[in-house]
């Protein structure tokens, strides 16, 4: 039993922390996240009660354990007067829910294998061209909604795709290869997401105490055994976090299913139902599917919670505290790197390179592009709809960043400094958006703000989605800034603040004059990373973003216009030009954060 004096002592300690500034710093993020995260998601839960989940689980289009289609078909065909062996990889369908789940597993496993191999090579060996390989490995992380998937589809089309053209028409081999449907989506996601695993595993590997591996070597372990029994197990935190994030990203991705016209995914289904909602109704099925998506994503998040919450992240993010065990590659290793890893990374980076080709080529209907023009690039300024989308995205992102900095600094400070029980909950609340599918947030916002806030500026149908988009961005991209700020706070000794407080400065004065100037660079870096991800945000942008239609005064962000223009004649070139713009912004921020500010934050993951 706790003694009365202890209780009083505890209360006194709590009261010390609960000064008006800290209370405000606790209340503000809590209120914002309750209103703009918890409440909309709770509404999804409420609406889904209108639909009997049994109807979904007994519907074979949603769950079906009897696979439809063949994963791979090989047939002899006559095409353009020649005989070919057509190899088509399409995948099998197990129903919408199972497809999403199985696809995410396959993507996570394949991306993990790829990511681990690349991370291991980069973390443990030195060889000529290592920097180039590192850049190539990071390239797929440059977010270019829709258009990178569009390029991947172009690579794998069996009729006029680049691979079939090289094999069949250049090398004159009697083969044509196509990857489409479910398999097309999977390959796109593997190529896009594997660097997330690479980055996280790499970060874990360079943090492994070298003495661990040395001891194992002294005990006789080497090669694969050393990797299997020491290196890989010690890299598991990075792998787990990266894999969970890839799993969630794959689950909620809509771009690849749209481009491959593959409707048998939960994300596509929710999107379709959402677009239909503009007729005034949003079917309860959308809510039920959103809920399933949410549960799956949350399950993955809980699995990695201890790696991604602020308190844990700060420990992992420093990176490279040891002098790394890097060896020179011998001939055999060099052959493997140059013959397998380099082509693989080049191939994975090709979609991003293809985005540039699409933007700058006059035409790319045939396997090879034709002509050079800057006209498509100029269109992003000349076309008022596209230009407005850029201005919109910039405006929403800047507004979101102001909120993100306010919420991020407040919440991180409370979590770092106040020793009160509520901080753990706030920590989860602040970091959870990294795992919450944007589609679920969009569906939740639609239900919540069109019903409870009907007729107010928050109602996206009456006033357009501008305000809601800024708010949704501020919630979704909050973890990036919160993490950077928290990491900064960890490096500022509390004694500096205590000294200030002891000398009579108020908490607010201490915060403004001591803490913020000391972590200014962290705030700036975090805000810039959040900004980049706001600019390229997709799920909320393509759903809520279209609610005010498309006109000169539209409120849609870049991602919505990219989706809209993808289906216009000549549109993909403009979409690619927007992709180039996004890539440029991302590169600028990476350089600023890493080279100028010398901050080392993992982009995605731990």
């Amino acid at each position: 039993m706790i003694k009365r004096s202890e209780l009083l002592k505890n209360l006194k300690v709590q009261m010390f922390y609960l000064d008006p500034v800290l209370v405000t710093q606790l209340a503000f993020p809590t209120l914002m996240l309750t209103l703009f995260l918890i409440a909309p998601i709770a509404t999804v839960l409420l609406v889904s009660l209108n639909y009997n989940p049994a109807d979904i689980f007994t519907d074979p289009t949603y769950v079906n354990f009897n696979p439809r289609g063949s994963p791979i078909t090989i047939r002899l065909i006559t095409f353009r007067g020649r005989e070919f062996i057509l190899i088509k990889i399409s995948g099998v369908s197990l129903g919408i829910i199972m497809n999403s789940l199985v696809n995410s597993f396959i993507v996570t496993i394949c991306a993990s294998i790829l990511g681990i191999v690349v991370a291991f090579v980069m973390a443990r060996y030195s060889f000529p061209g290592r920097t180039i390989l590192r850049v190539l490995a990071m390239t797929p992380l440059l977010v270019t909604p829709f258009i990178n998937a569009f390029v991947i589809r172009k690579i794998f089309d069996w009729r006029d795709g680049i691979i079939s053209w090289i094999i069949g028409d250049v090398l004159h081999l009697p083969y044509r290869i196509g990857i489409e449907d479910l398999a097309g989506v999977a390959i796109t996601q593997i190529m896009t997401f594997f660097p997330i695993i690479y980055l996280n595993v790499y970060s874990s590997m360079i943090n492994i105490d070298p003495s661990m591996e040395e001891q194992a070597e002294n005990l006789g372990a080497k090669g694969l055994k050393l990797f299997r029994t020491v290196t890989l197990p010690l890299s598991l935190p990075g792998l787990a976090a990266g894999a969970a994030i890839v799993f969630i990203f794959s689950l909620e991705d809509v771009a690849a299913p749209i481009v491959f016209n593959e409707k048998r995914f939960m994300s596509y289904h929710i999107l379709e139902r959402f677009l239909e909602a503009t007729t005034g109704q949003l079917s309860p099925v959308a809510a039920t599917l959103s809920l399933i998506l949410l549960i799956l994503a949350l399950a993955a998040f809980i699995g990695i919670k201890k790696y991604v919450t602020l308190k844990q992240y700060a420990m992992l993010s420093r990176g490279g505290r040891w002098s790394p065990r890097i060896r020179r590659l011998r001939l055999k290793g060099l052959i493997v790197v140059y013959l397998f890893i380099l082509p693989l990374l080049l191939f994975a980076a090709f979609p991003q390179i293809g985005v540039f080709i699409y933007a700058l080529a006059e035409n790319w209907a045939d396997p090879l592009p034709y002509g050079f023009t800057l006209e498509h690039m100029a269109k992003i300024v000349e076309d008022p709809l596209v230009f407005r989308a850029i201005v919109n995205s910039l405006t929403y992102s800047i507004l979101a960043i102001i909120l993100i900095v306010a919420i991020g600094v407040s919440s991180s400070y409370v979590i770092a400094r106040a020793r009160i029980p509520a901080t753990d909950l706030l920590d989860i609340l602040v970091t959870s958006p990294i795992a919450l599918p944007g589609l679920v947030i969009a569906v939740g916002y639609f239900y919540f703000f069109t019903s409870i806030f009907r007729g107010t500026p928050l109602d996206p149908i009456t006033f357009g989605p501008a305000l809601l988009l800024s708010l949704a961005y501020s919630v979704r991209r909050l973890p990036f800034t919160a993490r950077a700020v928290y990491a900064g706070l960890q490096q500022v000794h509390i004694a500096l603040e205590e000294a200030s407080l002891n000398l009579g400065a108020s908490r607010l004065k201490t915060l403004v004059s001591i803490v913020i100037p000391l972590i200014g660079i962290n705030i700036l870096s975090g805000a810039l990373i959040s900004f980049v991800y706001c600019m390229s945000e997709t799920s909320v942008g393509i759903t809520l973003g279209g609610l005010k239609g498309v006109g000169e005064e539209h409120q849609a962000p870049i991602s919505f216009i990219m989706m809209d223009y993808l289906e216009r004649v000549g549109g993909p070139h403009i979409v690619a030009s927007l992709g180039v713009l996004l890539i440029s912004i991302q590169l600028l921020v990476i350089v600023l954060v890493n080279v100028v500010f010398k901050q080392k934050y993992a982009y995605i993951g731990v």
Partner: protein
Amino acid sequence: MSRLGVGRLIFLAIIVIVLIGVSVVFIFMRPPPPLPEKKPEEKPPKVELNIISRHPTEILMKARELFKKSELAKKYNVVKINTIVIPPGLWRQYIEGGKADIAWGGGPTLFDYLYHEGLLAPLTSREVLEAIAQIPDEIAGMPMKRVGKDGKVYWVAAAIASFGFTVNHERLKDYNLPVPRSWRELASPIIGRPLVEYGEPALGIADPTMSTSNTRMYEIILQRYGWTEGWKILTLMAANAEVYSGSEAVRDGVIRGEIAVGITIDFYGYTAKLVNPECEYIIPRGETIVNGDPIALVKGARNPEAAQAFIAWVLTEGQKVWLDPSINRMPSNPKIFETPLGKNRTDLYEAYKITLKTKGMLFNDTLALMYERVMQWYFKATLVEVNDRLKEVWTKLLSLYFEGKIGESKFNEYVSILCAPLKFTDPLTGKEVEFTEEYAISICEKFEKDPTFKDKLISTWKKEAIEKYTYVLKQLEEY
């Protein structure tokens, strides 16, 4: 003459000259007499027009750019035009909220709905009535104007369009397929052959819940062939097809050669031809209708005079918007082909003449509207969402048929089972019903207003469709 006399004379001369000079100066330098007072010309107040539309933004932006240069824009001092492309479901809200002056594009079904709901205002200004007089009352038997009971015009066609399909000749050749000429041919085993040979559908269609033009084509087929036969054709078309999310995606599919044939509205076909000369638009003879794509003044418009001036402009001078090579639509006012610009577009004029001569069919717009929503979702539930299963059984059936393992009569027997309208338990009454036209009409209102009922029905249809396809597949596995 005395010296004094001479001097006086000189003095007088000087005075005369000075007087004359002063007079001249006075005459020329004096301010002009005041002109009879003329009132400065009164410029009307600055006007901002709001247009809600289903047209692509290219059309709206081109129209705005050209209209701003027009005399009518100056006359009514129209300084700004806002165009908003929004889904039809939001139109009522925009009109009732006073956020729109003009509604433009989206097909006659939508405009008739607006008219019946009292959301349109009659066109009455002199300019617009003169412009309306230049538009034919009917083309290929379809009305180009909606005249109300009061004798006033409520909407008028600003463009016309027919429905058919766009083919990609290169891909047809690749797949060794003939050029189809009718809807029935799109549902034929021949168009299904690439499914068997390449595992690839040759046809492209769009999900009717996402495309009003494809919805109209399905309605045309249902009325041309009758309910039961119509559903047979629709089922086999879906079995032969890649189902896209929208009509633009179908057009792009044909242009890129993902499919060999795509069902499209005419101007998508003309655009496809300009982008890829291998493409051609085909009008199925006697199996299409020519729709007028309306423009109208909405009820409660804030600037009705200026809005009507804009409508008048669209119907006359503004018809040139359709001739733009990036737009390629058929004007409703043939006089535009008499202008220098119109004379340059001989291709469109030829297409226009063909459209005028189009042997259309009788089409009941009101009937189509009575079952539209239910038809769209029945199509989606039974042909789109379970398309993989439909395709699997159809491909199997075709393989057996092409291999000669089943004969014509057996083939037709299985096709009849596959395509028969579903029988299912109505979630409302608990009774077994068949999906007939009457049934579709009877539930349409509840279906639109009750999302839970709608979801229940969709789920039932999907299950029944799967059961039917599985049954046929099992039968075929015995061969």
